[in-house]
């Protein structure tokens, strides 16, 4: 396996690199960011498509949404009626994730290609690209102005915190409401809205050009193709990385220049703590989520890191649902007490008490994050119980927004 380094010096917002041949990130090493001319030179023109051809392609490549939930995209396209709306969800509210912003800022035409293709297949009336930051909005608007097939495409800046990136919350924000998830379980496709993550659309654009057979040249049988990761924490080369699905975690960690990891968090702050199993294959089925990989080395207090993120998760509650509003702060206090030497019983109890009891998956994700962390860090917990701490500072290797 070769580590083809895309030159970080041309990267305006964090470095990008790849293991194997980059597909989504193709051309970034040469061009920095791809305007329409560079995009066509790199990827070639977008083949036309329709509903039957697109769903057959999506079935053949088993594409799942890349926003974290991993829902089969062909099923979503099939469930979307004609004449609806396509929403490209670029909110990327996962704090450690940069992949969607990188695509929007540096290769926006690939994302637009995918959105235009899906809009054509579903005869959508409108395409909306929902973004959280000005730089992404400006890059996409500039890209739209460079092409003639984007008259139905608009860019919307939507604000808000962690739960504002949830699919139904994005839809609500675009409708002029609060960017928080609604209480009733209404599927967006029932309302004629097809929403997916930025990377999903870029994958569609790549797949249309490669066709199913070449798309399957890399990756695994169950999950063909590549995926984007955002690698951060205690690594020498943090940034957005494109890897074949099924790549062993250890390959990514050594390419990223990680030292000896103490623990790894996969899938962001709704994700899972792992003891560093270097042969674990990265896959959506194994909880890759939106592709965030955060590395903690031995210099930081891992329990302190867990407590900091848990406090942040509690602060991100939309305050709509009782178990989340009261349960997550209780959970955060419990984890802070563990750092001071308490036993984990109360935290495990409160994690169970919030799990599955909300309008969105924020409490479930927080519960999974804390429960898996306490499991991986059980010897750390014993050390903190015996000595009231581990003597190491909490370095913030798991970044949380200020």
């Amino acid at each position, binding site marked *: 396996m070769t580590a083809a380094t895309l030159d970080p010096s041309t990267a305006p917002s964090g470095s990008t690199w790849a293991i194997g041949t980059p597909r989504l990130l193709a051309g970034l090493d040469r061009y920095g960011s791809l305007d329409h001319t560079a995009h066509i030179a790199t990827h070639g023109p977008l083949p036309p498509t329709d509903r039957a051809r697109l769903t057959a392609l999506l079935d053949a490549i088993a594409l799942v949404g890349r926003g974290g939930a991993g829902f089969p995209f062909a099923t979503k396209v099939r469930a979307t009626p004609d004449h609806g709306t396509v929403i490209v969800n670029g909110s990327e509210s996962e704090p450690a994730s940069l992949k969607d912003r990188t695509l929007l800022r540096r290769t926006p035409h690939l994302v637009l290609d995918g959105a235009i293709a899906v809009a054509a297949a579903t005869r959508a009336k409108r395409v909306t690209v929902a973004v959280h930051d000005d730089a992404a909005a400006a890059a996409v608007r500039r890209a739209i102005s460079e092409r003639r097939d984007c008259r139905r495409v608009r860019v919307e800046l939507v604000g808000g915190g962690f739960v504002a990136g949830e699919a139904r919350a994005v839809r609500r924000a675009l409708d002029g409401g609060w960017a*928080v*998830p*609604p*209480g*009733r379980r209404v599927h967006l496709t029932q309302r004629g809205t097809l929403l997916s993550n930025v990377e999903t659309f870029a994958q569609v654009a790549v797949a249309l050009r490669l066709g199913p057979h070449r798309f399957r040249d890399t990756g695994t049988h169950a999950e063909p193709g590549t995926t984007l990761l955002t690698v951060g924490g205690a690594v020498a080369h943090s940034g957005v990385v494109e890897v074949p699905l099924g790549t062993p975690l250890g390959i990514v960690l050594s390419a990223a220049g990680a030292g000896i990891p103490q623990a790894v968090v996969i899938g962001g702050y709704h994700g899972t703590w792992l003891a560093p199993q270097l042969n674990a294959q990265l896959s959506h089925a194994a909880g890759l989520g939106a592709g965030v990989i955060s590395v903690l080395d031995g210099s930081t207090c891992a329990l302190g890191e867990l407590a900091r993120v848990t406090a942040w998760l509690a602060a991100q509650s939309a305050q*709509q*649902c*009782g*178990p*989340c509003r*009261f*349960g997550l702060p209780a959970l955060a206090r419990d984890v802070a007490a563990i750092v001071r030497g308490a036993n984990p019983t109360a935290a495990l109890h409160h994690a169970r*008490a919030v799990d599955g*009891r*909300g*309008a969105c998956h924020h409490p479930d994700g927080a519960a999974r994050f804390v429960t898996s962390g306490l499991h991986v860090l059980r010897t750390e917990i014993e050390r903190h119980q015996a000595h009231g701490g581990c003597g190491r500072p909490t370095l913030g290797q798991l970044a949380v927004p200020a």
Partner: protein
Amino acid sequence: MQSNLEIDWTRCDGHGLCAELLPARIARDEWGFPLLAPSAVPDDELIDARRAVALCPALALRLETR
């Protein structure tokens, strides 16, 4: 046909009336919010369940039949 109690968590304020009316199916957590029994509502409890739904002061309790 199966009937399940569901809660709109964005509406529920934890009044606790449902737990009083359906003590066999609904308990309360330490903050007063309902904890539902995971199973479907049996036919002989449907009348009580509908009454609890109708009396929920926040309109948060629903009986979903599918």
